[in-house]
């Protein structure tokens, strides 16, 4: 007897609903955001601010390859953007999870064809996920580690794929909906597992037309797309523009209708001023943030009292108000995204060091801690930062000003990305502005950075904390949503308040001004999730 679930959220508020949902979700189409009748036709031009390294999503982490290439492919399951974090079927028509949580059975949609006309079967889905989860030889799969609970994938018949897992995992379904899990053709993978790095062959709503390096990527409507009446667009053109001014100019001039990653407040104002009611703006949370990591091998950063003083000195609430006017940051939050399913309720958040509403009390305590730690007035250290103005430099300048107010003299050292990472990795810094950014709200993903330096390649704090490692492990296997939330709070308290290994400054705030005639787009909390362009249409 199998029970099925339609949502994958662990959010306590929706818990009841989630448990009640015993109905299979059958190919739910995302709702159009306006009441207007969608109209077919037109070519969408949009800006992509970086270029795809390879064409194989299984081995990349950048949105720069998702934005232009994703429309050629389908996923097994995907996030329903208007109802994030709900997961809906893409190539999967339906699915069921066994009551013990160890078997996931996906029914694959019939009549789906690759762009070369061949039929998609469960064999293709299995081959694609085998490549992601059990890569062979010199194939690199970036997110392999997030699927370590998967034991085997079998294609029992042409329309069924079964995932057997070793332990109940609360995040597996969300992870399967990763926008990077494109379904490839088994025959092509069998011939050459690297074929997809340089070539395109998918089932997606758009067929590949051309890619001119450094210039643009173009796709044309897949006339044989499995979903009737989709896509609406005749085709699309992704323009690669790195210079921010040129991006804004492209949108202003109408050469592009949107940039799916987002603009800064000043750019939004520029575009709105120039285009008036021809543009609409979508704003919201973003699963990205800026943190500060401390080099715990250096004095006095090895002293938790000093680190605590540093976090206490930051007025996050006032900073949020001021900085959100000028930079793409805003929400105050702990280890999980504010507004997301795992956010810390404000009542708990304000108890953490540096999150209190009374800044003068916090600063007084900070000064006391500094004195206890033997750090003199006017103590000087360097803050390493990345030479990306928005929002890194703004955040850096804000921090320096905050720390000045408790008598610390901080020097801003801004480096190009290459040397910045090299310095972080080598422990060649005092404190550094760091960041995380991912496609889903999930403790497995967001907390990984805090696990010990020998476990996480993105932990530059040089510390070993087995308690956090243990909590992280427990969290990744805990299925009970309420207990998960408790573990997260426990993790948060230890990481941000007791040990203060790394601290959050502010979470990012996403701003997308786009032409009003672009319809059917609902901004999500991650720029990785955005467009497969299936439901987007142009009003004229």
């Amino acid at each position, binding site marked *: 007897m199998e029970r099925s679930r339609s949502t994958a959220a662990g959010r306590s508020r929706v818990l009841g609903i989630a448990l009640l949902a015993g109905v299979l979700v059958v190919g739910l189409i995302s709702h159009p955001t306006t009441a207007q009748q969608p109209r077919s036709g037109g070519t969408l031009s949009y800006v992509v601010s970086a270029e795809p390294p390879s064409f194989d999503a299984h081995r990349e982490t950048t949105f720069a390859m998702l934005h232009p290439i994703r429309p050629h492919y389908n996923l097994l399951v995907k996030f329903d953007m208007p109802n994030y974090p709900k997961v809906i079927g893409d190539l999967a028509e339906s699915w069921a999870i066994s009551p013990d949580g160890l078997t996931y059975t996906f029914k694959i949609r019939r009549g789906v064809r690759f762009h070369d006309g061949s039929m998609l079967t469960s064999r293709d889905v299995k081959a694609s996920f085998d490549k992601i989860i059990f890569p062979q030889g010199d194939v690199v799969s970036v997110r392999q580690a997030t699927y370590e609970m998967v034991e085997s994938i079998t294609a029992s018949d042409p329309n069924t794929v079964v995932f057997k897992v070793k332990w109940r995992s609360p995040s597996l379904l969300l992870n399967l909906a990763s926008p990077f899990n494109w379904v490839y053709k088994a025959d092509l993978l069998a011939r050459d597992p690297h074929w997809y790095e340089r070539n395109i062959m998918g089932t997606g709503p758009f067929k590949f037309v051309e890619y001119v390096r450094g210039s643009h990527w173009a796709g044309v409507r897949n006339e044989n797309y499995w979903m009737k009446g989709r896509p609406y667009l005749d085709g699309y053109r992704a323009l690669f523009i790195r210079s921010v001014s040129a991006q804004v100019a492209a949108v202003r001039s109408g050469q592009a209708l949107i940039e799916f990653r987002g603009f800064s407040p000043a750019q939004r104002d520029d575009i709105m001023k120039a285009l008036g009611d021809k543009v609409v703006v979508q704003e919201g949370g973003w699963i990205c943030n800026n943190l500060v990591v401390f080099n715990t091998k250096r004095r006095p950063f090895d002293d938790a009292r000093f680190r605590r003083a540093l976090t206490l000195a930051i007025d996050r609430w006032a900073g949020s108000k001021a900085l959100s006017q000028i930079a793409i940051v805003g929400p105050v939050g702990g280890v999980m995204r504010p507004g997301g399913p795992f956010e810390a309720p404000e009542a708990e958040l304000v108890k953490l060091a540096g999150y209190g509403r009374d800044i003068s009390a916090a600063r007084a305590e900070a000064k006391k801690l500094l004195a206890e730690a033997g750090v003199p007035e006017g103590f000087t250290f360097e803050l390493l930062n990345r*030479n990306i103005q928005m929002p890194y430099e703004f955040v850096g300048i804000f921090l320096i000003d905050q720390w000045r107010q408790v008598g610390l003299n901080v020097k801003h050292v801004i480096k190009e990305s290459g040397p910045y990472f090299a310095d972080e990795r080598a422990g060649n810094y005092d404190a550094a502005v760091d960041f995380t950014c991912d496609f889903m709200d999930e403790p497995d993903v967001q907390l990984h950075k805090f696990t010990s330096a020998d476990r996480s390649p993105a932990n530059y704090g040089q510390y070993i904390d087995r308690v956090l490692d243990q909590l992280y492990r427990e969290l990744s296997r805990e299925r009970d949503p309420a207990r998960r939330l408790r573990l997260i709070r426990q993790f948060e308290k230890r990481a941000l308040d007791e040990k203060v290994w790394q601290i959050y400054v502010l979470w990012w705030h996403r701003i997308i001004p786009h032409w009003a005639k672009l319809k059917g787009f609902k901004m999500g909390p991650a720029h990785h999730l955005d467009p497969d362009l299936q439901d987007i249409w142009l009003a004229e």
Partner: protein
Amino acid sequence: MATTIPLPTVAGFRRQRWLARFVRRYPMGVAGGVVIIVMAVTAALATWLAPSDPLRTDFLAMFVPPGANHLLGTDAFGRDVLSRVIFGARTALLVGFSASFGGATVGAIIGVISAYFGGTMDLIIQRLADILISFPIIILALVIVAILGSGAFNLIVAIALSFVPRIELVVRASALGIRRTAYVEAARAIGAGHWRIIFRHMVPNVVAPYLVMLTSFLGQAILLEASLSFLGLGVTEPTPAWGLMLSGAAVDFVQRAPWMAIFPGLAITFTVLAFNVLGDSLRDALDPRLRT
């Protein structure tokens, strides 16, 4: 075309007369020199002359147009553009002078030594210099900055190093001419030491090409610093530097806040112009053959 003014020698009174003649014949060069002196004084007194701290940010006064409070407006961080232009003169002159002096001196020394000793070492150095000048100077500097990392000091080293092969070739050519003259041969015959010959006979004779190259480097160094900083590979924020002021927000908001782009660019152009006209006049005065 240009009249040659004899080279200044150590004798003080002759130098004075040389200077007077220079002023008379090259008014443009003198104007350039005056601009540079004004610039240098401004840079030195920046702390007193600048209306506000160039690093002071004010998020309530971003993109303020030029006016009474901020003569040249403010930038994306609400920093006073005038103060940053004034302090930027420091960066420009520091990088310009250090890189040019350093590069020209090291290059000249290598050139003289290479010419004097000759042989395999000379051959290797020459091949190396030939090869190094086959890279556009900005590409060489970009690579060196990438190796050393950004920041003012590394930028100085990078620019200086990319000048070395260029002056080395010129100085070596002049030095080679002297090396073969009778008096150097005679000095060697009577057993004078290598260093004595180099300093007494060869060095004074390469002073002219050295000075000419040096002055032509000054403007170039400032332009290079601006270009590299503009590309994000030179001086880094928050250091006030003209090229840096032109990158990022200045381009992003060129229409909204054109003052951010106009004034630092004018500062670069004026300074380089001043160095160039002074350099041209000096070159004409010192050695018209080196005219390019």
